[in-house]
């Protein structure tokens, strides 16, 4: 099952050329870009590991692409996302975030139903990948 999180996630994966153009757009807006990775794709997992440091003062996407290449080499089977952070006063939040690398096999999620009092049913989802310990998931 293909993970859909962040911007563009219902489109086919962006090519490097397209990523570059998105980064350029971010930089032109004065946003700082950074890379994060994880192997726990649950939508509530908002704390991904940061790869390197956030890149303030970047002028050109080439710098980020260099890091992205390294990050993909280190974590070929992880999800990697690119986040653009707007530090403008009172924004101070990510403005754009999209996935730039995903594992070749994505096992997807299981829906768990829990019987509850009065014939109520509680639903929860569980990622098959997280059955295995960290770093062995994909």
């Amino acid at each position, binding site marked *: 099952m293909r993970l859909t999180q962040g911007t563009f996630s219902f489109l086919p994966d962006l090519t490097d050329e397209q990523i570059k153009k998105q980064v350029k757009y971010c930089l032109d807006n004065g946003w700082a870009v950074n890379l994060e990775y994880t192997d726990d794709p649950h939508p509530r997992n908002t704390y991904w590991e940061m790869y390197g440091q956030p890149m303030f003062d970047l*002028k050109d996407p080439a*710098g980020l692409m260099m890091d992205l290449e390294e990050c993909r080499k280190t974590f070929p089977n992880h999800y990697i996302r690119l986040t653009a952070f707007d530090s403008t006063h009172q924004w101070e939040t990510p403005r754009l975030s999209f996935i730039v690398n995903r594992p070749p096999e994505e096992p997807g999620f299981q829906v768990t139903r829990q019987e509850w009092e009065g014939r109520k049913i509680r639903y929860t989802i569980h990622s098959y990948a997280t059955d295995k310990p960290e770093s062995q998931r994909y």
Partner: protein
Amino acid sequence: MSSAEDTTGRDDKQPLADDARVDLDVVFEESQIQEVFDQLDHDLIGLTPVKTRIREIAALLLVDHVRRQFNLASDTPTLHMCFTGNPGTGKTTVAERMAQILHKLNYVREGHLVSVTRDDLVGQYIGHTAPKTKEVIKRAMGGVLFIDEAYYLYRPENERDYGQESIEILLQVMENNRDDLVVIMAGYKDRMDRFFESNPGFRSRIAHHIDFPDYSPDELGSISQLMLADENYQFSDEAKTAFDEYIERRMQQPHFANARSIRNALDRMRLRQAKRLFEARGSVTRRDLTTLEAADVRASRVFVEPLNSDA
């Protein structure tokens, strides 16, 4: 061709026919490079070898641009440079210009200059250097990375110095990311030569070694005029003569740093002029405020202690 199309210098377009003709004059006009040359001639006195090299580079890039229109493949030329010369010969100034020029020629995408020294590249602890150097490189991408006094990167007397690590990363980036950034190193000639001797990788990766000559007294005179004009000052006629004399004498003395010495001398003369005006009290005119008099020049130590002081 509109200038908007012109800026897509590296994109592959439909190649021109074999017998097509491209007017180099038009290409030259469109690149607006003449403006840059004029500015260069106006702002930088002397420095003929430097200007010649800049013209050569500009010509090469323009011709390359036309060649690409004919679909004639050629590698992007390496434009890493090394500026050597005595203090105050305009190395940093030219580096700044170079970023603009290369941007105009579509060689670099952004045209900004990131100016660094050893401190910005080399860390203090093990494992600190690589991220630091990479961070700087990332910032410089799309523009020019200017490493002032690059020889400090290499400290042969200390085997555990982290400079070497920084050098290795730089070398790798200079080779692999040629399209993304231009590295310019600057420093004094003899020390730069020694630096290259111990790091032959650098010498071969830098295509352009440009030597900045010392300025002649006449050139220094013109430079002083330019500096004063920028600050809305001028010499009176006597002051001009006195300053020419000052240059002659100053050049004989130790620690002479070309244009930098001139700038410092002018700054001190402005101080003396301000003091003179202030002590005279009374009213001043615009002319008084902008004119440096011979007395302001002659009060310099250079005229009192010949050939042994560090004025």
